[in-house]
């Protein structure tokens, strides 16, 4: 005779974060797990909240740039680019062509830096220790370039309303030209190490997939959205600066899973190199800044503007309201990771604990930007 016995099991809550190697910062998510399988995920943010928006309202337009560097602290030039386009729109000035090209070069190099950072951290999430060092080896070449341009390795504070802080240093463009082939080779090496690796494939393919419709609904942008097969890039669909004149592709994925996000980013690095090469050929000599009266303490006309750019992590938007004067009235930052992170519980449906780490890594969150 068979007696049926029911075994009562209890779901376990695992608190991942705020300090956990997989969260890339101070982010916390509470996973409800049934064994190794995730039943539910609740993200908590705000551990790095520094009140950027309040600070910005109490400082001059120029000083806000300092805080912007510290929001997405891996793609600083891109942040400054976005904010200054907003300020320049309100001021009604246009930067000279040299400054535009310099901005694009620096922003695209910064995109490579950011994606290399993602590559390294993602490899680390997957349990491979070497990709991180490979990525940082390549990243260091660019960091040194940035240092020679702005004097700082991370918090550049280099773009100014109407142009740049100072001209590109002598020999900078030649140095970029020299480094690009080296960088290409480095990216190829990174590619060899991870992209075809069967262990890596089995960890990423089909994990954390999200449909295009759902991604748009959650407001996911950037590589997350492009991995779903939506060919959307602000540089193409809502073009700004001199991007319309440049020739580059927008790589997309098919399934919207973790691997596609990874692949989109790796291909974007190559596209960025293409953009930089074109800019190097075209960048003219000339002034690097359109003069603005009363330079550091300029007054901005009343008005409001929403500007968004394509940051490495997605669509970075700034809603800037000015009531006239030297201080912004309101600065709202639409940070891409903030929105991408909202889709995390949807991506973690029926995943394993180990997948949670990979999916979070594939979102490439920067907590400075999520929490602001």
């Amino acid at each position, binding site marked *: 005779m068979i007696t049926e016995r029911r075994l009562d099991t209890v779901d376990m809550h695992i608190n991942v974060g705020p300090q956990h190697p997989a969260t890339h910062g101070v982010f916390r998510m509470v996973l409800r797990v049934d064994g190794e399988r995730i039943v539910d995920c609740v993200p908590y943010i705000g551990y790095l909240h520094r009140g950027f928006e309040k*600070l910005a309202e109490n*400082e*001059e337009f*120029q*000083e806000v740039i*300092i*805080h912007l560097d510290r929001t997405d602290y891996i793609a600083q030039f891109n942040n400054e680019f976005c904010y200054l386009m907003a300020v320049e729109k309100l001021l009604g000035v246009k930067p000279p062509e040299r400054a535009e090209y310099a901005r694009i070069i620096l922003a695209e190099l910064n995109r490579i830096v950011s994606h290399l950072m993602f590559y390294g951290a993602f490899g680390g999430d997957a349990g491979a220790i*070497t990709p991180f060092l*490979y990525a940082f*080896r390549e990243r*260091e070449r660019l960091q*040194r370039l940035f*240092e*020679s*341009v*702005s*004097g*700082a390795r991370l*918090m550049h*504070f280099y773009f100014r309303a109407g142009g740049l*802080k*100072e001209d590109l*240093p002598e020999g900078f463009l030649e140095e970029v030209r020299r480094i690009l082939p080296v960088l290409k080779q480095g990216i190829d*090496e990174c590619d*060899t*190490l*991870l*992209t*075809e*690796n*069967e*262990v*890596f*494939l089995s960890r990423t393919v089909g994990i954390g997939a999200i449909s295009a419709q759902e991604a748009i609904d959650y407001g996911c942008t950037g590589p997350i959205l492009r991995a779903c097969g939506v060919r959307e890039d602000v540089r193409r669909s809502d073009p700004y600066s001199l991007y319309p004149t440049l020739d580059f592709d927008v790589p997309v994925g098919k399934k919207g899973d973790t691997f596609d996000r990874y692949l989109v980013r790796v291909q974007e690095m190559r596209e960025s190199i293409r953009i930089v090469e074109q800019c190097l050929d075209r960048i003219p000599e000339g002034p690097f800044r359109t003069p603005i009266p009363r330079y*550091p*303490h300029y007054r901005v006309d009343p008005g409001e503007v929403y500007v968004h750019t394509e940051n490495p992590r997605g669509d970075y938007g700034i809603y800037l309201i000015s009531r006239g004067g030297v201080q912004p009235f309101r600065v709202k930052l639409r940070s891409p990771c903030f929105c991408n992170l909202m889709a995390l519980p949807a991506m973690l449906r029926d995943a394993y604990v180990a997948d949670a780490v990979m999916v979070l890594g594939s979102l490439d969150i920067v907590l400075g930007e999520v929490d602001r």
Partner: protein
Amino acid sequence: MIGVLKGLVQTWKTHWRKPVTVQYPDERLPLQPRYMGFPGLIWDQAIGEPFCTGCQVCMRYCPTQCMYVTMQDNPKQAAGESKRRKIVETFTIDISRCISCAICVEVCNFDAIEMTHAHERAGYYPDVVPDLPQLLKMSEDFRAQRGQKPARETRDVL
């Protein structure tokens, strides 16, 4: 299997390359000329006093509020040696809070402050709040490093 083997070949090849890292305290990577370390105050060699007049502009625009500046009447102006009516009395920077953003350099009306290459402040008793003579010395050392004449002979004023 092929991908794994490719990866193994890649790491094997890398293993024989020259390491890219350096042994830090023995060997330092060169800083770029524009490198921004902590701010220092520039010494006016012609007159023998700092360029800084203590006008507090930098203090007000400092995003981390890490500076404290006071001003005094310039005794040299009374003696007819200097054209500056006011001169800095105290100048303190809490460099544990300084973020090296160089906004003080940008707002300074007298070009009296500059970003030096000083960045190594670790130590058993780190001096995190340099005062005026130390700030002047930071700038002086920085200029000496870059091959400009140090202003040591005129330092007796302070």
